[in-house]
């Protein structure tokens, strides 16, 4: 049995790396490299796996998990500039991997994390499993 919980946050970022020249950044990242950055309404699908507790009928306590995700992740990124927080280029790929790492650490003692999917826009989804 798997249970997915969806969280939302709003943040800005800019796709840019100092390893490349200005011109190369523009070439690789296009308008995503615009100097002032831009933002998204991100969605995060956190997927857990296991057997529901026979007493409560639930795989996990929603409110408790919500609180933990809020503390270890959402509060750190909501209404922030992601490049200030994350050392790597803030592509959907890297963000999904970083968030998966954070959540893995937070839920090391359970419930069992299966995957983290970052939805940047309805057209761009990144799954770290």
């Amino acid at each position, binding site marked *: *049995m798997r249970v*997915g919980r969806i969280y939302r946050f709003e943040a800005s970022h800019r796709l840019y790396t100092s390893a490349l020249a200005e011109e190369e950044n523009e070439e690789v990242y296009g308008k995503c490299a615009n100097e002032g950055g831009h933002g998204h309404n991100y969605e995060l699908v956190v997927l857990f796996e296991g057997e529901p507790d026979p007493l409560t009928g639930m795989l996990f306590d*929603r409110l408790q998990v919500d609180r933990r995700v809020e503390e270890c992740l959402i509060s750190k990124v909501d209404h922030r500039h992601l490049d200030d927080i994350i050392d790597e280029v803030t592509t959907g790929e890297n963000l999904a991997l970083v968030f998966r790492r954070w959540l893995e650490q937070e839920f090391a003692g359970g419930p069992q994390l299966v995957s983290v999917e970052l939805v940047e826009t309805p057209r761009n989804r990144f799954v770290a499993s």
Partner: protein
Amino acid sequence: MSATSRLRILRTVRFCAGHRYHSEALSEEQNREVFGACNRPHGHGHNYRLEVGVEGPVDPVTGMVINLADLDKLLRQIVVEKLDHSFLNYDLEYFTDVIPSCENIVRYLWSVLEQPIAELGKCRLSLIRLWESEDLFAELEREPTQ
């Protein structure tokens, strides 16, 4: 990919139902503590969205895994007519001693849909994903056969 490749199709149906989280094994106070607002005596409800995955070989003549009209009829009879505008705790015997959590409704739906779908042909039920709201879903998926 060959003509006999297995393929999964997903069909979505919706139903609105009420439920309450309450366990006889717990005291009134413990119920309130564990289930919070979900334990309020008269329950609450959701607009459920159910995704049903059916897999099987693509019929070389019809080009279909399953006739969607047959699947729709089955989903209407087994899911919508039974669950839509019901109060799950009282209206479904299955939930007499089982809390109708999203997880347990998924188990119930699997148990009532598996056999009738298998009887429709060479296909079989492969996924039940139930969205309780835009923020929560539970799912059961058939293990891939070796």
